[in-house]
């Protein structure tokens, strides 16, 4: 990996990571060498150091109590408690504990952190959670970068729908049905369907990099996987299926 970008300069990220001593030694050495030769990047490095000193000397101590007070007020809000209460009975202890961390870490109100897609309340929703190795589960949002071998699980609010199917088109355009895994049509929801339902499938991501689109198809009648595939390939930005509600989510898969 090279420290400079395609335009021949250090990015803000590289300069920040250098200040944090979080670059690999070879990259750090390259970045430092670049700073000696590039007045623009040198200027930005000096500005960051100046700001860092200013923050530590004048801002940190004065504002820390306010930050701590703000964070201590960040109790789980209605939606977080709501989600947790509904999910706990349906999940295993370990998964529930991991999800509890995710939810508890969320904000107290509906904000940019909200992981719902679509309308809240009784409308259908589609949530995706990932787990990396033995780590805690985390919500997959628009800016979440996932890696090969991450495991995905899906939570939906089916509303009045009787059938569900989750499918994907990966970075190479390959279509797959994730739930019911590999099936030719959607699954019938039977018995007492909870308002928010964790689907039974767990999917381990392969090593195809790039942007992957997920869809959940909720419908009153069974939907063929081939029809979902056609809708996705025809209109990937907003796939539509007659008689079904289609919710989408995207994530980016990157190399570890």
């Amino acid at each position, binding site marked *: 990996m090279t420290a400079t970008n395609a335009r021949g300069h250090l990015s803000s990220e590289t300069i920040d990571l250098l200040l944090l001593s979080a670059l690999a030694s070879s990259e750090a050495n390259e970045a430092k060498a670049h700073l000696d030769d590039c007045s623009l990047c040198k200027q930005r490095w000096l500005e960051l150091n100046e700001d860092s000193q200013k923050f530590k000397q004048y801002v940190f101590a004065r504002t820390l109590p306010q*930050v701590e007070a703000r964070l201590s007020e960040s109790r789980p809000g209605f939606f977080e408690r709501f989600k947790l209460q509904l999910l706990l009975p349906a999940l295993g202890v370990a998964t529930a504990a991991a999800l509890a961390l995710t939810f508890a870490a969320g904000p107290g109100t509906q904000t940019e952190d909200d992981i719902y897609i679509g309308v809240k309340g009784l409308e259908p929703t589609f949530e995706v959670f990932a787990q990396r190795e033995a780590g805690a589960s985390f919500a997959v949002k628009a800016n979440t970068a996932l890696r090969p071998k991450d495991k995905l699980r899906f939570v939906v609010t089916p509303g009045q729908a009787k059938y569900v199917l989750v499918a994907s088109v990966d970075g190479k355009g390959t279509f797959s049905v994730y739930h019911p895994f590999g099936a030719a049509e959607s699954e019938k929801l039977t018995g007492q369907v909870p308002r928010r339902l964790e689907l039974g499938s767990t999917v381990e991501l392969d090593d195809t990099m790039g942007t992957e689109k997920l869809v959940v198809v909720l419908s009153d009648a069974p939907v063929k996987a081939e029809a979902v595939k056609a809708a996705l390939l025809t209109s990937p930005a907003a796939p539509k299926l007659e008689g079904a509600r289609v919710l989408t989510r995207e994530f980016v898969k990157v190399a570890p």
Partner: protein
Amino acid sequence: MPPSGVPSTGRVSDLYRKFGPAIYSRCRRLLKDDALAEDATQEVFVRVMRHIEAAPDDSAALAWIYRISTNYCLNQIRDRSRQAEPTAPDELPEGDGETLEPQMLDRDVAMRLVERTPEKLRETVILYYVDGLEQEQVARTLGISRRTVINRLQEFQERSRKFLAREGSPS
């Protein structure tokens, strides 16, 4: 972590000391005002803290910092611009008609052009031109495709070139 999900006081202090400088510096660059940057740093850090425990490494934490601080500062700039007078056009340097790269290396110029740009393009433009991220990194940070990044940058370039050509060089 305690049951509330809020990190312990000591952990907050450590993380604020670690990431606060990057947030503060970024807010200063975008807002160009020390007092506003100080307030923005607190706001951004509180938001970052809601996610940071799930970050696998410092790079992932920085991605959140960039996203959250950019959005927060852009909101501040937007609110401010509703009241403030726009920058005089003749304070902006002339473009060469081909590429914006030379002008955009000056972050002050870049930010002035950004302030004239439709909101849907701003975040992408800041990450690419002001932060110097690669297109792929911008796409990953924003959760959009690289194609979308390219399209937004092209739209920004076309708009800025027209603007610079129309307004001319400094007198």
